[in-house]
């Protein structure tokens, strides 16, 4: 491949972005449904293009700020794929909002921004993108226009601003004290001269990313946003920026911190740092999720724990990068599936109050939704036969192999513990008697759902959840036959 035109290299992002712009215009003509469909299609095309590009082996450097290699393309494919799935899951609610097309456009922008952030090697670009994401996320969260959502959005925005502030502070320090460059690679060279500054810079920048990741102690926004936001918005805020942030954190950790390892003056212990954060996140997230009655809030806390598992990978080092990306991706997929189920419940004109208890009896009234929910919960727990298991295995397995038994134990115990609340959802859905706030008997199967237009439309989130659950099962089972290597190699560094 000799074509190195920027439009070619960036075509997936461009397609997604163009879809978003188109959706905005269509929304202006009040063609909400068309707008949503356009974003979904453009996201799918972008995902396909990324996947195709990922199969190549060339790396591109664009204007010294973007480094795009097949690994990044693989991440992009995931980001856009998840974006399509989330939009599908939230489609019904979006279509009812006055500016529904605009919301879907926000989703497209969010995914494009996240894609770019994962490829950035320049702090200045990263800070701009973080700000973009914060604004888009604010819009997304607020789009539902309930008081809860507005409050959540505000919190998200304030904390996002704090993160940006931290980041800018770090950037300023880096620029001023470490050699006058905003390029990450260049920063690395400066760290040797001023270790303490490097430490502060790293901490500031990493905490900004940790906030995006939702790791302890920068997690506080997560429960509120998960609970209050629009299902599509929430699933995107949850998923897409996290993949980008994790990818970037690996980069920064490698460049800023690892070179110092081995040298006598090393002030920085990334392993220690990430281990502490990981274990704290796992404990905090799991304990927090245990007693939640609201489904979204439970997912929010559990996300903190999931961020903790990803931090284990960071503590172990670059070797875990593919595993960490796999972990984050299948987490995102499972979380999106769960949000799609929530979206479907909300779409069914139901009186569902968002509580876990309110889902009781779902197995009888909407077996497909219940099954998708069960699959996503089992995958989040990390039970074999579902994708989540491979994600956790590839991180914990490497941690054990590298001698971080302590982290492995923390990770697996956290996973076991998580079944207390994930399993409680399954228990409610399958074993408990239907509560008073019963879910009405709307479509029971995807095929049935497609027979009638009105019903079809409302069934979209359900379809999204079933698709998500199906993918979780396929990723969970296929490695048994073809091995885990292809799955991990997909994220392999440098192809």
């Amino acid at each position, binding site marked *: 491949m000799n074509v190195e035109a920027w439009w070619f290299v960036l075509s997936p992002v461009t397609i997604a972005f163009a879809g978003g712009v188109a959706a905005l215009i269509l929304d202006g003509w009040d063609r909400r449904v068309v707008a949503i469909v356009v974003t979904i299609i453009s996201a799918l095309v972008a995902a396909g293009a990324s996947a195709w590009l990922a199969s190549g082996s060339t790396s591109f450097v664009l204007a010294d700020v973007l480094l795009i290699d097949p690994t990044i393309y693989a991440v992009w494919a995931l980001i856009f794929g998840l974006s399509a799935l989330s939009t599908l899951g939230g489609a019904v609610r979006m279509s009812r909002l006055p500016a529904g097309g605009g919301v879907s456009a926000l989703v497209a922008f969010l995914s494009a921004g996240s894609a770019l952030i994962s490829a950035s090697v320049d702090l200045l670009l990263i800070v701009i993108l973080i700000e973009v994401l914060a604004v888009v996320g604010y819009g997304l969260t607020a789009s539902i226009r309930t008081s809860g959502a507005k409050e959540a959005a505000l919190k998200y925005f*304030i904390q996002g601003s704090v993160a940006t502030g*931290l980041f800018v502070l770090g950037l300023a320090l880096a620029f001023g004290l470490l050699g006058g460059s905003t390029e990450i690679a260049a920063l690395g060279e400066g760290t040797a001269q001023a270790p303490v500054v490097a430490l502060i810079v790293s901490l500031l920048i990493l905490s900004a990313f940790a906030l995006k990741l939702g790791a302890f102690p*920068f997690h*506080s926004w997560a429960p509120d946003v998960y609970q209050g936001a629009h299902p599509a918005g929430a699933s995107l805020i949850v998923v897409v920026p996290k993949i980008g942030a994790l990818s970037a954190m690996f980069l920064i950790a490698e460049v800023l911190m690892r070179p110092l390892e081995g040298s006598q003056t090393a*002030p920085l212990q990334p392993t220690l740092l990430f281990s502490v954060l990981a274990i704290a996140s796992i404990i905090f997230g799991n304990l927090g999720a245990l*007693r939640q009655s609201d489904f979204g809030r439970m997912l929010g806390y559990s996300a903190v724990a999931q961020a903790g598992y990803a931090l284990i990978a960071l503590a172990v080092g670059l070797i875990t990068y593919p595993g960490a990306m796999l972990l984050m991706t299948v987490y995102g997929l499972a979380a999106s599936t769960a949000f799609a189920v929530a979206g479907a419940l909300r779409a069914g004109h139901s009186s569902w109050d968002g509580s876990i208890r309110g889902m009781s009896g779902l197995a009888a009234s909407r077996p497909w939704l219940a099954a998708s929910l069960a699959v996503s919960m089992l995958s989040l727990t990390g039970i074999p036969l579902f994708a989540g298991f491979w994600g956790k295995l590839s991180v914990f397995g490497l941690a054990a192999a590298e001698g971080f038994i302590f982290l492995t134990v923390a990770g697996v115990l956290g996973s076991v513990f998580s079944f207390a609340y994930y399993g409680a959802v399954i228990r409610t859905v399958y074993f408990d008697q239907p509560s008073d706030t019963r879910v009405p008997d709307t479509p029971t199967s995807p095929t049935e759902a497609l027979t009638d237009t009105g019903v079809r439309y409302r069934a979209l989130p359900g379809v999204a959840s079933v698709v998500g659950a199906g993918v979780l099962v396929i990723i969970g089972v296929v490695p048994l036959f073809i091995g885990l290597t292809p799955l991990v190699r997909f994220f392999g560094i440098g192809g």
Partner: protein
Amino acid sequence: MMWLADNAWVAVALPALFALLVALVGRADRLVAPLLGIGSAASVLLSGIAVLLTVAEGRTPAAATIRWLPSEEGILAIGWSADGLVGSMLVVVGFVSLMVMVYSAGYMAADEGRVRYYALLSLFLAAMSLVVVSDGLLGLFIGWELMGVCSYLLIGHWTIKPAAAAAAKKAFLVTRVGDVGLLAGIVLLWSHAGALDYESLAAVIDTLSPDILTTVALLLAVGAIGKSAQFPLHIWLPDAMEGPTPVSALIHAATMVAAGVFLIARTWPIYELAPLATYVLLGIGVATALGAALVACVQTDIKRVLAFSTISQLGFMFAALGAGYWGVAMFHLVTHAAFKSLLFLAAGSVIHSSGTQDLRKMGGLRKGMQFTFEAWTFGALALAGIFPTSGFFSKDKILYIVTSENLPAGALLFLTTAITAYYVARVTVLVFFGPRNSRKKPHETGLAMSIPPLILAIPAVGLGYLAKPSIELMAAEYVGFDLPVALIATGVALLGVAIGVFLHRSGPSADIAFERRLGGVWGWIQAGYRLDSVVQKSVSRPSLGLARAAYRHIDRDLVDRAVIGVGSTANFLGERLRRLQNGDTQWYISMGFIGLIVLYSLSVSWDRIHVWLTGGG
């Protein structure tokens, strides 16, 4: 016939097969089940005769062995072998069970559980034959346990009676305690000798240390004590009377209780090298003989009298074993089998006819039950050891060898002989003489029930003259007739009889007078020295209480609560945490900053912490 002798396994296989057949087709006709039962008894008897004939010819019947379980370190096999001892035992078992089967045809004719009864009886026979013909301790143990279960089911035959269920359970559990001892002995022997069949054992036994041999002998004796109802594991036997009377006859005479004596006889080479164990046997035998005889004197239930007399007579056998003459013990086993089964079957007829087991409600049954009375009398004379019945000869030998081995023990056995004669006379007088206390008119109970006791009377009386050939056939040491002992024994026995007849000639009034005069002691003896309640209080109830307490306090309160505790602690922390997340953004941000500062401090001071933690190393 020779084929039967060389294939002793037939004595196990046929009864087992018949048991199966009974279970499958026994319901078809009233006669099928009894006939099949008689068939299984006959097959055992025939096998025994064939073996004895072969041995008499001076030939050893064939044996064979099959590997039963894999084992690198020795031979874990089962097989069969036969000799004079085995043949005699098979004859005894076959003969007595044949009588019992015939008798049952009358006794159990109207019972709803007939089919089950005959199937179990046949299976019981198969198990006993397995004990007898096994060529080693493994096979013996298998038969031994199976017999335990069959006796459990037979004692509990009348399932609707809670007392029967309790008695059956007790019989199984108490003998199980002995069985665990036996098993321990087997395991110990296996781990040191590497084999369990008698032939291999005999070859290596000299190489084992005396300590091991003594331990093995004592452990095997525990099993024998349980099965043969010796003190202190005899407590199951009196209760076992809850079963149908023919079953009692079989259990008490030829099968269950005989197995213990047989076990020691069969493993005699071990005991020969373990003198300590034989002393223990002697002590237990004498104590049991005397103690049980005393209890038998004051029982009011005819079957309980016989039960305690069984325990007492087995005590004689153990004493003989303890004195070192297993052949004599076996000979007493044979004669005892004859007269005791006779007595049980006759007692069954008496119960059947009078409708009660209570001695005080019987009386005057001689008229109307002439056959039964005559048969009973022969049996009673044999039990009392009156010349010229078989019991006289076998008991005479035991008294002689025990006296010459250990004088005080011998003296106690003489005393027991007198007591035995006394209670035999008491029962006989109370049942058959004196005024009639029951309104029911005594009557004979049909051919099937009258003939077997009469047939059994023949060996009960005549076996004594076969002492020499039968002991020699078993290849055991023969003990001749000893006149002084015989004279003294006869004297004390006659004395006992005389006292018994004199005291009880006027019916149960003597008992009442005794009871009034002796008060608590009487009750204490009558209840078998209250050993049952001692066991209840010291073993059963404490263990149950302990188990309950362990369940409540260890399993639930400790182990399970520890598990639940993890969950509730987590829930508690989760609840706390939920309150921490109060929706206050300022607080959220502060938390982030605090975290940042902590992380910073940790990072910069880690080296020092690390040095401190590792002690400067």
